């Protein structure tokens, strides 16, 4: 049986990254001076898992690095080392390095060896610096490695003799004795002897059982606790006997060369060992599908709460019951309409619930995104010399995984902005009568079918006068033009607009807010800002919960039905002929409350036979896309409904003016309009140089 160990790499990486997150958030919460023992323990466990995993999968560099980290943590755990701010800083740096090393290993790339070496050196420096608390002799091992510290208490005796007799079911628990032997060897000089007397005759040989026992002789300077630690995972699955020989040290008879025995042991063990996946019980087991996916490369996967899957199974069960109930009505002679109606109502309910339930699987709490901010705020505020308290509200609010991934970068940008431009230096705050430390609040909540994310600070707020001056300077606003306050604030979303007096490496280059706004718009969301000069700003992002479903307005043009996303619609109105103006006899405009908006005759643009080409007979739907407005001329407004977005690109290609398609209740397909694309298409169609060849004359 050959095992492709690579298929478990993805699982290892995923778990390691999760472990790093645990470590990071643990370290951030760690109180200097009086650490919570359980917190240190959980950090230590995460590091230990990464070390174990990287050893198993042959990522030695990661393993060695983590080992140092672990040693440091172990000392903190035992209380032999004080938790200082410097130590935590170094540990955080180490977490970053580990993350980089892991990403590099995952992508098959090289990591920045110099940077890692620098952190490595810092860790060693920390270790060497020792601790304020004196090391209690003997029992408390300062380090598990066979380095200098071993001599501190190692003089006690001669060689260790370890009798290691695994139970036959050792492999079933996912443990590999060879790994344990290697780990022992790493502790110090050792000799290993295998006892093959337990091997049954070939016919009775169970390939998944362990029949071999080992006697290991180990350098006497190694701590007992270090040896115990090696066997930590197999304690319950093996008989382990530790004995220390007198200083003279009885030689184990017939001791063979380390490597030879190791190889001899390795051969049977490797061929029969079950996949060493998930050595630790209790954590979630992976489905076969996940493994298949993992083998295929970097497929994106999602962790789903088992409760969600259970509810899905329940719903499918109900659906099956409804189906069999409807099936019983299949009697052409006698149709029971009441029962049929009842069944159909039930089917509708089942389907709706099933849809909601399936959508919920894609939903993840926003904490996945928020969790990175404590670190970011900590690092950035100390760099800027500001005191900032971060408050996170509603981190359990769920939203679609795709949306979650796409707002991560905009959020980082907004938080950096708030820290850099928003919150002032402590002295300035004190002078303004505010507490020295600023407060940054990240809040998320559901509102209807949307998620609202707010980033607010109690900092300086936007200076309207400076914004206006800057805008005038750049010619965005006329010299004596005055803007209402909200329009004024919106200036910051203008490309290249920055009010920072000097450019720092944090922000101030004037790229960003426009990109943030564009990203949010691409997700079908809106962003606005409220600010009070001197009191702080709040940026509010409103996003649809999912990209798979949208609220649509069904409209009819000729015999075709189209869907206009409700978010794009400003209003729908009946045409007042006196307000229609034309430019150069061609382009039609409609005067709407002092603004002139172009009229888009959809039937012309899309080449459809309209019911009427006279504007008075139809309606104008005013839409907004990419900051521009237009009035779409249609024959009739139909209903509003939620539609499931299907891509046209799966089997065809992108079509200008169309963002996708959906299937209506009667099974026919309807196109979903893309407001921005439609306006652009209309502009193009009016350029005489570029007539659209395929548009049929209406």
């Amino acid at each position, binding site marked *: 049986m050959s095992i492709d160990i690579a298929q478990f790499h993805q699982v290892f990486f995923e778990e390691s990254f999760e472990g790093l997150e645990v470590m990071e958030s643990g370290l951030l919460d760690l109180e200097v001076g009086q650490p919570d023992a359980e917190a240190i323990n959980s950090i230590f466990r995460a590091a230990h898992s990464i070390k174990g995993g990287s050893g198993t999968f042959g990522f030695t560099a990661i393993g060695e690095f983590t080992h140092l980290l672990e040693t440091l943590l172990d000392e903190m755990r035992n209380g032999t080392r004080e938790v200082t701010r410097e130590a935590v800083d170094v540990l955080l740096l180490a977490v970053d390095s580990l993350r980089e090393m892991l990403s590099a290993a995952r992508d098959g790339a090289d990591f920045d060896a110099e940077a890692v070496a620098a952190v490595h050196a810092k860790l060693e420096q920390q270790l060497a610096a020792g601790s304020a608390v004196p090391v209690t002799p003997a029992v408390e091992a300062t380090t598990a490695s066979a380095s200098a510290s071993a001599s501190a208490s190692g003089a006690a005796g001669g060689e260790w003799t370890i009798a290691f007799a695994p139970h036959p079911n050792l492999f079933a628990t996912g443990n590999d004795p060879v790994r344990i032997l290697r780990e022992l060897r790493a502790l110090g000089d050792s000799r290993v002897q295998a006892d093959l007397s337990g091997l049954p005759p070939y016919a009775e040989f169970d390939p998944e059982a362990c029949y071999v026992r080992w006697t290991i002789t180990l350098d006497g300077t190694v701590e007992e606790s270090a040896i115990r630690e090696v066997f930590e995972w197999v304690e319950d699955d093996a008989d382990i006997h530790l004995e220390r020989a007198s200083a003279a040290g009885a030689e184990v008879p017939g001791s063979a060369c380390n490597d030879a025995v190791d190889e001899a042991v390795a051969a049977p063990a490797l061929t029969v060992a079950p996949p060493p996946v998930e050595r630790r019980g209790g954590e979630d087991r992976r489905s076969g599908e996940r493994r298949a996916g993992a083998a295929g490369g970097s497929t994106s996967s999602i962790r789903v709460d088992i409760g969600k899957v259970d509810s899905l199974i329940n719903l499918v069960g109900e659906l099956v019951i409804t189906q069999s109930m409807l099936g019983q009505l299949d009697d052409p002679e006698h149709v029971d309409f009441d029962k049929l109606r009842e069944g159909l109502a039930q089917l509708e309910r089942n389907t709706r619930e099933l849809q909601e339930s399936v959508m919920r699987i894609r939903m993840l709490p926003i904490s996945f995104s928020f969790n990175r901010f404590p670190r970011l705020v900590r690092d950035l505020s100390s760099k800027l010399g500001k005191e900032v308290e971060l408050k996170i509200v509603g981190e359990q609010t769920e939203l679609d995984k795709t949306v979650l991934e796409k707002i991560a970068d905009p959020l980082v940008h907004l938080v950096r902005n708030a820290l850099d431009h928003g919150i002032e230096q402590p002295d300035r705050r004190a002078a303004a009568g505010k507490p020295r430390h600023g407060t940054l609040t990240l809040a998320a909540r559901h509102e209807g079918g949307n998620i609202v994310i707010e980033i607010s600070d109690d900092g300086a707020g936007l200076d309207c006068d400076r914004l206006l001056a800057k805008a005038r300077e750049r010619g965005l606003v006329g010299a004596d033009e005055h803007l209402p306050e909200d329009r004024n604030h919106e200036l910051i979303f203008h490309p290249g607009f920055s009010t920072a007096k000097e450019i720092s490496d944090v922000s101030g280059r004037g790229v960003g807010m426009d990109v943030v706004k564009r990203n949010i718009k691409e997700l079908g969301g809106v962003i606005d800002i409220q600010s009070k000069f001197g009191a702080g700003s709040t940026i509010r992002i409103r996003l649809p919960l999912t990209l798979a479903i949208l609220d649509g307005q069904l409209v009819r043009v000729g015999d075709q039905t189209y869907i206009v996303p409700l978010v794009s619609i400003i209003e729908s109105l009946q045409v007042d002929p006196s307000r229609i103006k034309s430019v150069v006899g061609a382009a039609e405009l409609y005067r709407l409350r002092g603004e002139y908006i172009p009229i888009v005759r959809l039937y012309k643009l899309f080449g*459809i036979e309209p019911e009427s080409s006279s504007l008075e007979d139809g309606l104008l739907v005013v839409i907004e896309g990419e900051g521009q407005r237009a009035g779409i001329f249609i024959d009739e407004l139909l209903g509003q409904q939620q539609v499931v977005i299907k891509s046209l690109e799966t*089997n065809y290609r992108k079509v200008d003016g169309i963002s996708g*398609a959906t*299937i209506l209740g009667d099974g026919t397909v309807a196109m979903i309009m893309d407001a921005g694309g439609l306006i652009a298409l209309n502009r193009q169609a009016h350029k005489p140089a570029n007539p659209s060849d395929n548009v049929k004359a209406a």
Partner: protein
Amino acid sequence: MDTSMNAQSIELGMTDNVGNADQYLTFLLNGEEYGVDILRVQEIKGWMPTTKIPNTPEYIRGVMNLRGAIVPIIDLRLRFNMPAIEQTATTVVIVLKVESEAGERTIGFVVDAVSEVYNVSAEHFKAAPDFGSQVHTDFIRALATVDEKMIILLDIDRLVGSDGILQAPNASH
């Protein structure tokens, strides 16, 4: 010749695989008989009204809902510049898998009627003669004679690929 969509004949053909001959599903178009590799055929559907896609060549009839997937429909008559006809009782949509540069696509093709399933081995292939610029023959894989009839075997990937209809609008302009 039976011109209706005859499920029985398709079934008989399927079980009748002789030697290393490939099987071809043939269909009728303006009196001519065309064949496509049967392994590409996903299903055969009756004609259903389609939803138009704006600004596409006329031979793209629009899209259809195929069990939740949005599938474009190409009218082969119009594609081959044959006179358009009204849909008849035998008009069907043959849904094929097409390999394109952009990946595998599912596309429906409107034809007059489904005909037969034939085993055609490669030695019966005759290369299509060069018609000059009059007829593009890129997408004709070969001509084959079966039961004294000429069958035009189509290379469906080339047929779709040569049109560039699957390319994004910006690329084709």
